[in-house]
Every structure is written in structure tokens, then in C-alpha cells.
């Protein structure tokens, strides 16, 4: 095991996989950083430091610094993938999927199906997402729900450095298109990462991070840590929670969710996105349909409100879920008879 930050797990996994497999290619805005400037290539190395050193090691053909052209970045990833490469495209902010949505939604997600299963499209779109930086409405969003709703895509939302390593390696070796969502507020989080160069975490396997008999809490990304914090506080008061980190929203580990709810009968879903047509409502519908008889209380959702994301510190704090809100939701679920 090696201790490293979430962002280093991204960079190291890409580096190792590029070493292992010549077909792995990186492209995106400023993934080299400094091209065409007095500072020269790698003056930056990616604004998230997730591609530092790749250009020097692998060169311009495999570490492709692109203009600000998100449609062309995703489309080129599709063309590379149809031509035998394993592209890892970076959308510097997940919010920019709006600019590139056709290429994600109508192109890479659908190639295999439209073409009768005769091709594969092993493209990864890394989306840097989430609030916590006071970056306001266009640089803080969590658009995982719309991507999860697109057949043909897999959607991955790691919450720890180890999960980044295992899930990103799985994504790179996977033959289907993968949306890999990295939460920007987690980049500095430290954790132990296995040394095994083939360490992969298969998709569709949730992780139980806290175990308890009273309430089930579902979370992804930055919400996992908040759910754990609430669960730890509640545990001190004799309330036991299962905290389930879904890890991937497509495919979804339905079994882990339903098994837990069958025991607890009470469910709190934590989601960083607004509540309508969201991951939270999707999970809520799943449990209502498949575990109705187990439920002993209405399903609680702790989500962002149905608003854009505000800028000011106080407003962003008010917007986001937090451990107190999660704790209150757990207590509300428990109070219902």
C-alpha cells in the first residue's frame, strides 16, 4: 500500500496504464499546459495536476493538448476509440458536458448499439465535478444523473484514492465508454492505495463503508464522507447506519441497496445534485418498487435544492448537503412509526 492523494491516484493510474498499453491516449484542454507559451510544454501540466509528467514521458501523439473545443475533444475520443485506441479525454469541468453533449449522448454512447454490436468504443470521459470551491453555477455542478440515464454509458464516481485507482484502471481496460467523475473537492484527500499494478475494482459493486442495523444511507463522491461523518456521530448515540458508497451509478449495485434496506427498513439518500429527475429520485423509485414491503418509514432525500449553485460561501454551504442535514434526515426516518 502507498499513501497518496486522490489526484495522484488519477495521475499514477493513467501513467501506469499508458506504460502498460501503447493504445492508451490522453487528450484535453491543458493536459500538457503551456503549449505555445514562453513557459513551454508542461509549464502547467493540467490544472488539476492529474496529467503532470505524462507529456514528457509519452510525447505529443499520445498526450494531446487540445484547444478549448469540448465537442471535438469528446468526438475525437470517439474516433480514436473506433480506431483501436483507448482514449482518456478530460473535461476540465463536468459542467462543460453541455458543450459536448451530442458527442457523448448521440455518438459514443450509441455507436455499439446503432452499429449492431459490431464495434467497441473504449473511450473514457473524465469529468471533474462538484461543489466546494465557491466556483458558482457553471463550475460546480454534479451532472451524473443525466449521464446515468443514458444507455450505453457507464458512470463511475469514486470517493477515495483507492477507489480512484481501482475504478480508473477498470475503466481504462473496459471496452465500453465510461464517464469517470472526479470530485474536485476530493483531490487533496489522502488514502492508502494498493501497489498491485493490476488492481481493478469491477463496476457495479458498491462499498459498505459503515455498518449498522437502523438506517441505510446511500451516497456517492463527496457525499460519502459526509454520510460517514453523520453515521459516526449517530453511532455515538446508539444509532447504527449502513453507509453504502455506490461507486458506480451505471451499472448500479441494486442488490447491495435492497439487501441493506431489507434489514434496516429505513433509507436516506444523499445526493449533491438538485432533487428532480435525479439519482436520488431514481434510487428512491428502485427501493419503492423492489423493497416496498421492507420499508418502515418514507424514504428521505438529502439533496441540493432545485436552484442553480450560488457563489457566496454562506450560500454554497446552504445549498450543499452536510452531515447535520444527513443526521437530521436519519433521525426523521427513525422517528416515523
Amino acid at each position: 500500500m502507498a499513501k497518496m492523494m486522490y489526484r495522484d491516484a488519477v495521475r499514477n493510474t493513467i501513467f501506469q496504464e499508458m506504460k502498460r498499453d501503447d493504445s492508451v491516449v490522453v487528450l484535453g484542454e491543458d493536459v500538457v499546459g503551456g503549449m505555445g507559451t514562453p513557459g513551454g510544454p508542461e509549464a502547467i501540466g493540467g490544472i488539476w495536476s492529474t496529467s503532470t509528467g505524462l507529456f514528457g514521458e509519452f510525447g505529443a501523439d499520445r498526450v494531446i493538448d487540445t484547444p478549448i473545443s469540448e465537442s471535438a475533444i469528446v468526438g475525437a475520443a470517439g474516433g480514436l476509440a473506433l480506431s483501436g485506441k483507448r482514449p482518456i479525454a478530460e473535461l476540465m469541468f463536468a459542467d462543460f458536458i453541455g458543450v459536448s453533449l451530442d458527442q457523448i449522448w448521440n455518438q459514443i454512447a450509441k455507436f455499439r448499439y446503432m452499429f449492431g454490436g459490431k464495434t467497441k468504443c473504449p473511450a473514457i470521459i473524465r469529468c471533474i465535478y462538484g461543489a466546494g470551491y465557491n466556483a458558482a453555477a457553471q463550475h460546480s455542478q454534479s451532472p451524473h444523473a443525466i449521464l446515468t440515464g443514458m444507455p450505453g454509458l457507464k458512470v463511475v464516481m469514486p470517493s477515495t484514492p483507492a477507489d480512484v485507482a481501482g475504478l480508473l484502471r477498470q475503466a481504462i481496460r473496459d471496452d465500453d465508454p465510461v464517464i469517470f467523475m472526479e470530485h474536485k473537492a476530493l483531490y487533496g484527500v489522502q488514502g492508502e492505495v494498493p501497489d498491485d499494478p493490476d488492481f481493478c475494482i469491477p463496476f457495479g459493486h458498491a462499498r459498505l463503508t459503515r455498518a449498522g442495523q437502523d438506517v441505510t444511507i446511500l451516497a456517492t463522491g463527496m457525499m460519502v464522507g459526509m454520510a460517514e461523518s453523520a453515521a459516526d456521530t449517530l453511532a455515538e448515540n446508539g444509532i447504527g447506519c449502513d453507509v453504502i458508497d455506490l461507486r458506480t451509478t451505471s451499472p448500479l449495485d441494486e442488490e447491495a441497496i435492497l439487501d441493506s434496506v431489507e434489514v434496516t427498513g429505513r433509507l436516506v439518500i444523499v445526493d449533491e445534485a438538485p432533487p428532480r429527475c435525479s439519482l436520488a429520485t431514481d434510487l428512491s423509485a428502485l427501493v419503492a418498487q423492489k423493497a416496498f414491503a421492507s420499508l418502515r418509514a418514507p424514504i428521505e432525500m438529502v439533496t441540493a435544492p432545485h436552484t442553480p449553485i450560488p457563489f457566496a460561501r454562506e450560500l454554497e454551504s446552504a445549498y450543499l448537503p452536510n452531515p447535520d442535514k444527513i443526521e437530521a434526515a436519519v433521525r426523521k426516518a427513525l422517528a416515523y412509526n
Partner: protein
Amino acid sequence: MQLSREDLLQAYRRMKTIRAFEELLHDEIQTGEIAGFTHLYCGQEAVAVGVCEHLSDDDKIVSTHRGHGHCLAKGCDVEGMMKEIWGSREGLCKGKGGSMHIADVDKGMLGANGIVGAGAPIAVGAAMAAKIDGPDANGKLKVAIAFSGDGACNQGTTFEAMNMAVVTKAPAIFVFENNHYSEHTGFEYAVGTQRDIASRAEAFGMRVWRADGTDFSAVHDTMSEVLEYVRAGNGPAAVEFDTERFYGHFEGDPQRYRAKGELDRIREERDCIKKFRESATEAKLLDGADLDQVDAEVAQAIEKAVVAARAAERPKAEDVLVDVYIDY
């Protein structure tokens, strides 16, 4: 560059196959036997064939919603395509794609595309892959070609793709087929420069060519130069071919936007297949009997394909769930 008799006959056969394939579709669509939307390429055959005759299966193309011609020119199987358009399980895409999504990646055909302007970025990615793979033993790069029309030339994706190809020196070729109509809107209205499309590509920093897209030799010769330039590693290029669309935007389009007599005029003066026949026979490169024989063989092949498509296995309801993912 003078082609051999065999090459000329092959080019003619391919153009004629596209024409016969689509004229049959035009008739069959009236009967209601074919489902969905169909956009015919008739009139533009010299472009698809004049371009694709230069390519191998390792060269890639990305096509458009008007894609039958590009597919056939790139070597997609006639029967497989016909079965696909009939929605059969035996179709090239197992009945999942239909007219607008025919693809055969093994032939370097990365898909027709229902979204106008979506193809150019995909072609740039394929060109990046060709650049990574490097030149062959003869020092030539494989290329990727984006076919776009005068509609797609107005999409931002096309602009992004052209710039990115120049920046990354990708061996991409942007082939613009200007048939003067984007759907039901005229080129003079929709292309703000009211000039050609090639000058836009030139403004992105690439070398451009222009030629008469109804003249097979002009297309073929132009592409010889373009491909020599791009395969040598000079970066991307663009070509604009002025051409004609014999049918509407889609089958069923009443074409009220056409000038009186326009369709008769372009069929008389600008039919690439007619012009090919005339020039090849006048120059005594081929004689009429050769060409008539090809016509008869093509007609037979198309008829056979339709019979096969009608008899082909229909998809089953459970096929809906297949081929979304490789592993899920």
C-alpha cells in the same frame, strides 16, 4: 491521371450501384415497405466514389445522414445494407441502425450519422489514431475523411474539428459536398459568407482544393493530390466539391423550394454518371457495350439484394436488449 480500363469500369460500377440502389429505394419507399427516414445521395455519386477509390480499409471515413453513397463506395456489402434498410436482423447493423446509422468499422466506415455536423470531430480522432500509428513502409500515413455538406459546414463541431486537426497536424481530410441545399434552405442564405466553403477551411489554416463534384475525373484527380499531401504528413486538408442532389432532403420532401425546371436541368447537365459515360466513350476508354453490361449486372445485383432483404430474418423483441454494452 489516366485510370486503367479496369479501374474505370470499377468506378463506374460503384457509381451505378449507388444510383440503382437508391432509385430502387425511392420507388420502394412509396409502397410503405421501408420504415423510417431515408435521405438519398443520388446525383453526388462521383464524389463518394472519386474519393473512396483511393482508400484502403485502414483509411477511415465518417459519413452523414445522406450516407448510402459513402457506405457503398467504401465497400459496405450491398445486401447487408439493403437488409439493414429493410430492418432485418441480418442487416449490417442487425436492424438497430437503419439508413442513417449504417457502419462497417472493419471496412473503415465509421458510420453514417443522423446528427448534421457530428462526424468531423470523430474523423479527427480517427486521424489522430492514424498519426499515432505512423507511416507505412512507403512512408505514407493512413487518413481519416469527414464527409460534410453545406449544412454541416455551419455547425460549430465542424469548426472545432477543423481547428483541432490543424493544431494537432492530424491526417484528416474534410470533404465538403456542396449540393446547394441544407435540408430545404439554400446555400446563398445559410452560408453567411455567400462564398464557397473551402475558404472557411482555408481560414483555419489548412490547404484547400476545389473541384466539380459532378466530374468523376476531376474528383479523382483532385483527391490524388490531396491524399499525396496529407499522407506525407503535412497535416489536414479540405476539398469542396460542387455537386447536385437529385432528390429532396428526405424521401417525401415535396421540394417546393426548387426552381422551375431545375431538376430536369441538373439531370440533363450535371448528372455525374451520364457525364462519365459520355467522356469515357468519347475518349474511347470504354465502349457503350461495356457500360451497358455493367448496368445490367448492377441491376441484377440490386434486384437480388432486395429479394434477399425481403426474405431476411426479422429481428426479435428480445434483440432490443442486446449490444448496448459489451459487459454490464
